[in-house]
């Protein structure tokens, strides 16, 4: 339950410190970028072949490099100039880096928030029930939790993706349908299996925290009183236990959004992504050409760092203001 005191505490810590403000501004800008990617983008992010007349990818503005190209059967070095058409240059298959940067934000945020949401929906009810009833149910949950934690999250996710495959659902992009962004892809790939897998490897953190809270709350007088009136367990769980365990769950959720964004990037880097639009995938693509065309990896990496920092800054703010005691900071 978010009391008045907590609200004023949140406001006060927000007003006093620069960092949460910075986090909020960053996150709002990234969300804005992601939402309006089709409008802000200059090119279709999936269209290849944006090369200069010699057939070399463009560098970002203000940057020049020497490309090796095949000319008359010989490899020759030619200087490549940037163009204002592609402000962040193009990648090795000639896709616009800036446009891909914008679309990459969509994938990161989609996976981060949807994955956390699903993990919440799985973990919180299980944790609350285990903590509230205790006994065998609780023992069972704790052993499952221990088992889950014995897998590194990344390793388990890889194994699960190996089983489930990597498919994505193509959701029509309303901005393109409405005719606001011509020439952009008509649908957004939502990496469904990745989202489900990251939720499956992180729900256990929510279950642990929810369990701990329910364990404490079930001994509170108001719960005992409600029981003595014959209130149903389900009602008690919904009306008393859940609202009173929200604070640490909210803080954990923020931490997990950041952790899941990083996890998604790692999976995509290893080639387990539902879409080539993912930042992590793009970084992997730039790895082989790091020496000559470093911007291909650098730009999406900066995107990930800024997104995760913004979420972490807000998470720190919530943690300081709400002051719960949770240990989960899995990645």
């Amino acid at each position, binding site marked *: 339950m978010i009391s008045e005191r907590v609200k004023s505490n949140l406001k006060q810590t927000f007003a006093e410190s620069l960092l949460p403000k910075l986090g909020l501004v960053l996150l709002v800008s990234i969300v804005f970028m992601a939402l309006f990617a089709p409008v802000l983008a200059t090119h279709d992010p999936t269209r290849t072949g944006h090369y200069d007349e010699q057939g070399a990818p463009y560098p970002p503005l203000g940057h020049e490099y020497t490309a090796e190209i095949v000319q008359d059967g010989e490899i020759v070095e030619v200087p490549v100039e940037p163009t204002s058409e592609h402000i962040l240059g193009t990648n090795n298959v000639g896709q616009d880096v800036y446009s891909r940067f914008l679309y990459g934000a969509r994938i990161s945020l989609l996976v981060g928030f949807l994955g956390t949401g699903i993990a919440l929906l799985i973990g919180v009810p299980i944790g609350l029930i285990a903590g509230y009833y205790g006994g065998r149910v609780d023992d069972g949950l704790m052993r499952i939790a221990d088992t889950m934690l*014995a897998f590194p999250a990344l390793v388990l996710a890889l*194994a699960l993706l190996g089983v489930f495959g990597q498919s994505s659902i193509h959701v029509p992009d309303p901005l393109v349908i409405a005719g606001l962004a011509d020439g952009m892809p008509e649908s957004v790939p939502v990496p469904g299996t990745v989202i489900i897998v990251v939720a499956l490897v992180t729900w256990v953190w929510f279950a642990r925290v929810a369990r701990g809270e329910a364990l404490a709350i079930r001994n509170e007088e108001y719960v005992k009183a409600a029981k003595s009136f014959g209130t149903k367990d389900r009602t008690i769980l919904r009306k008393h236990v859940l609202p009173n365990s929200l604070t640490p769950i909210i803080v954990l959720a923020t931490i997990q959004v950041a952790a899941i964004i990083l996890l998604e990037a790692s999976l995509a880097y290893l*080639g387990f992504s539902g879409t080539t639009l993912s930042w992590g995938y793009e*970084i992997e693509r730039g790895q082989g050409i790091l020496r000559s065309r*470093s911007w291909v990896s650098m730009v999406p990496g900066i995107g990930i760092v800024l997104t995760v920092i913004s979420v972490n800054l807000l998470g720190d703010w919530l943690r300081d203001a709400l002051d719960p005691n949770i240990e989960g*900071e899995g990645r």
Partner: protein
Amino acid sequence: MTMGKFLVRRILQGIFVIWGVITVMFGLRAVSPGDPATLMLGEGATQELIERVREQEGLNEPIYIQYFEYLQGMVVGDFGYSWRSNREVEAMVIERVPATIELAVAATIVAIVIAIPLGVISATRRNEPADYGATLFSLLGISTPNFWLGLMLILVLGVWAGLFPTGRRPVGFGQAMMTLVQYGSVYDLLVWLQYITLPALTLGTYFTALITRLTRSGMVDELGKEYVMASRAKGLPAVLVRYKHVLRNTMIPIITVLGLQLGTLLGGAVITETVFNWPGLGLRLVDALGARDWPLMQGIIVFIAIAFVTINIVVDALYNYLNPQVREG
């Protein structure tokens, strides 16, 4: 509860967890698409050959028999044969363990050597420039994906500055030590050190950042406790108050958090090894995943789980030893 009882209970729990991991892995393999025999033999094998392999591997048995036999194999340390290379999984795991341990230990050393002083400085000079610097560093550290950090380190320190080699390492720690012992030459050791620096920094940064944060916040809490003032009041030198009392008490709970974070370290090792082409378990796991080489994959993951559980038991025992409030009898 005595230490002995505690250990027995924890070890039983650990065995249960490892059994769980084995079972999960078996289950995943059972539901995964693709016929194992086809995977083993590759496309284009004759139906007759496939049938023979199925028979030989017991793939035609009912699933519970397969599970039982699989479990039996695990108990006696028989992890099966790799589908791809047809080598024993145990050998393929063991030969890759040293490189991963080298990397994990180096990363842990990096983390501890940097993080604890940084956390102490941050906590004792709160709201001074040093604190802001440490806070910024740790924020960046926990927010940077380590594969990207690894690439940037390769780019900046390896390619641009030319300080570190970026290829696959020519020599492991064991071999470097052999050179030292046999020929009295530290050359190989230096080469090894040169090659491990960037991977260790890459893997260690997240932990450095995490431990810095934990040390800072733990120490700030601890410094506010009354016994700190009481220690100062009795005239104890500030250094002793800070380290013998406050830092020690701060580290006790951090140790358990680190035990839990070990999974993250091993997961990070998978990524770091891929970036640096580091010949460890993680790289082999990624290869096995790509090739859908289930026995190898299972072997590596079960091995990681055993390592994780064992280290956590050690950490719990250490915690109990260090914290007299839970240590009894």
